[in-house]
């Protein structure tokens, strides 16, 4: 297969605008997707899917900046609005209409909090985007049988689920794989947070008797049972927290944490 591959040149908005072109959709990569080594793999998997189906997309590249979400949840409304207003200027200058992102925190902020500051876009999360590609037959998941019999449990992201009522899209995406989907006791609207939201990602937990990600990982491991399994996530913070939890429980050999985009890219033969 080595010879049958091509190098991807990820298009930026600056280049597109210079050529007088507009993308169908802007892929908002997010800070974790840009800098976190683990989540960069999710970004790359998602771009592979975009390239594979031939969607006309672009990224902001180095013009992208933090949405301000962690600042807002930490109470720093001033810094949040500075970031938001600056980002909105960039997005509006490029006449962006539709945005897809693999981060539920970016998704929630751009979709729900940017309109008050003059940023009005159609914003969709990559779980919904992938669900649409599957429904339209653009992604066929022909390698889905590789997952046959594998147990997968989906961990709901708070900012996708309760915050925006998106529960089925990521599950529909996973259902396209030939896997054995199992639900944790606390799922959908009753899902338990991974512990990273509200800027907790950037601080030590307050005094308590357990870390939240351990509580959640224990639940996921109990749901998967013994043997190999996958914890599927759709959020960079959940990814970090669940991966750390699995490591803490010394289960990283048998239990893997994957983003739904990575699972689809694998099943589509786009990456390993």
């Amino acid at each position, binding site marked *: 297969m080595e010879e049958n591959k091509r190098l*991807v040149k990820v298009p930026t908005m600056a280049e597109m605008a210079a050529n007088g072109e507009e993308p169908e959709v802007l892929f908002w990569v997010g800070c974790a997707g840009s800098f976190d080594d683990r989540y960069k793999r999710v970004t790359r998997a998602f771009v592979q899917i975009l390239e594979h189906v031939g969607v006309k997309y672009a990224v902001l590249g180095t013009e992208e900046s*933090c949405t301000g979400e962690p*600042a807002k949840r930490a109470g720093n409304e*001033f810094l949040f609005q500075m970031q938001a207003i600056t980002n909105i200027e960039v997005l509006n200058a490029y006449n962006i209409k539709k945005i897809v992102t693999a981060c539920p925190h970016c998704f929630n902020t751009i979709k729900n909090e940017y309109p008050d500051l003059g940023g009005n876009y159609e914003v969709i999360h990559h779980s919904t985007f992938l669900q649409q590609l599957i429904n339209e037959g653009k992604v066929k998941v022909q390698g889905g049988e590789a997952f046959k019999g594998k147990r997968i449990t989906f961990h709901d992201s708070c900012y996708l689920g309760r*915050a925006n009522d998106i529960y089925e899209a990521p599950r529909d995406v996973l259902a396209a794989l030939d896997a054995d989907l199992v639900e944790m006791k606390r799922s959908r609207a009753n899902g338990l*947070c991974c512990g990273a939201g509200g800027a907790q990602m950037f601080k030590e937990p307050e005094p308590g008797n357990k870390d939240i990600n351990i509580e959640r990982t224990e639940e996921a491991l109990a749901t998967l049972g013994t043997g190999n399994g996958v914890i599927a996530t759709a959020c960079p913070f959940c990814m970090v927290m669940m991966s750390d939890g699995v490591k803490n429980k010394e289960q990283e050999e048998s239990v893997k944490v994957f983003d739904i985009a990575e699972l689809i890219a694998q099943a589509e033969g786009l990456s390993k």
Partner: protein
Amino acid sequence: MIQLENIIFLIVAALGIGLFVWQIRKIRKNILIGRDVDRSDNPSERINKTLLVAFGQQKMFKRMLPAVLHLFVYVGFLVINIEVLEIMIDGIFGTHRVLGFLGPFYDGLMAVNEILAALVIIACAIFLWRRNVTKVPRLATGVEMRAWPKMDANVILITEIVLMFALFAFNIADLKLAALNNHTLPGTFPVSSSFVNIFGNDAGTLATIASVGWWIHIIGILAFMNYLPSSKHFHIIMAFPNVYFSKLWPKGKFTTNPAITHEIKAMLDPSYQPPAPEMDAEGNPIVQRFGAKDVEDLTWKQLMDSYTCTECGRCTSVCPANITGKLLSPRKIVMDTRDRMEEKGEHPAIFAPNHYKELGVERVKTTDEKTLLRGYITPEELWACTTCNACVESCPVNIDQLSTIMDLRRYLVLEESAAPASINAMFTNIENNGAPWAFPSSDRFNWAEELYVPSKN
């Protein structure tokens, strides 16, 4: 015929209702301490929500057993109130079962009433059991569940049981008296008719029992009504407006402060003209705090939330921070808000605010500041929140605990710069690098290097 008894009744009822109105005015005044917020939009959506969540008890059904038991008490409350109306009319005009003319409808109503009253007794007994014997954790534990809230819950449950027994005593004696006098009482009484002989055959005794039962029921109801404003049981009234005024937008959308927007726009563009600030009555500009330090910095809706809270603890029992032993309890945030509001503003007949220090609660490190922040709610609690919205989702009466937590957190950060050091480091990173981590923004696009996809041919 109007007798002395009717006049006494009229005076008792007038006193009871008057006291209640007086208390409601105080509570209204307290709620209006809060900042203004417009929740008059989308009335049809709001009515739908009220029908589903408040009248329809939709969110209660996340937990089946308490939902069904609560439904008995709730429907019992609504239906038995029709008989209370009759009791009032009878009491004022000296009539006897004045609605009896409704015939078969009255029969049905009385029958349903009696069955519901029996179910209310059963449900309240089980609730007492859950609180005091099995000690369901969310009802029995937590630093905010001190002596008063625990007693409050028991007072209500016992009162409800007593009220129902009084109703039965009245019906049983009334039924037996009618039988002794060979006339038919309007109504059907499936429960009382089974116990019709328990009070004996003496007409005098029966008349006294009927009368005492009637008086206990009516005085009980008036007393209960006046107890409500001091109690968690106030939710039976507040649940309806609170659900009506609850937020309609996605839970993930937090409020935006327009004053900050103007400030930033003026900073970025010197020609930007911010709107003139609002003036108070003396013509001085109103300077609002950023975030909330005390109850007047919260909105009236957030204050209304605190009067609606039933202290059921569903929010706390699903809070990831609380589950893992952190101090944060969303219920405590709401209960503290009510305590502080009544301490600062008006207070109803019974007033028992929770001062953690005085109660020897070690874990909540409050200070002597007379404010909601630090005097009641500590930064440790606020910084434990993951903003996951589990509390908001779980609340059967649509309280928005998270919005209060966020407003207090905003005050800590915007007015006091009192964020934890690592959070301040994150702020600095965003300011300097446009990312919460210390990576140079020039590296932001490095992820795209050396990326391949299979070629299609």
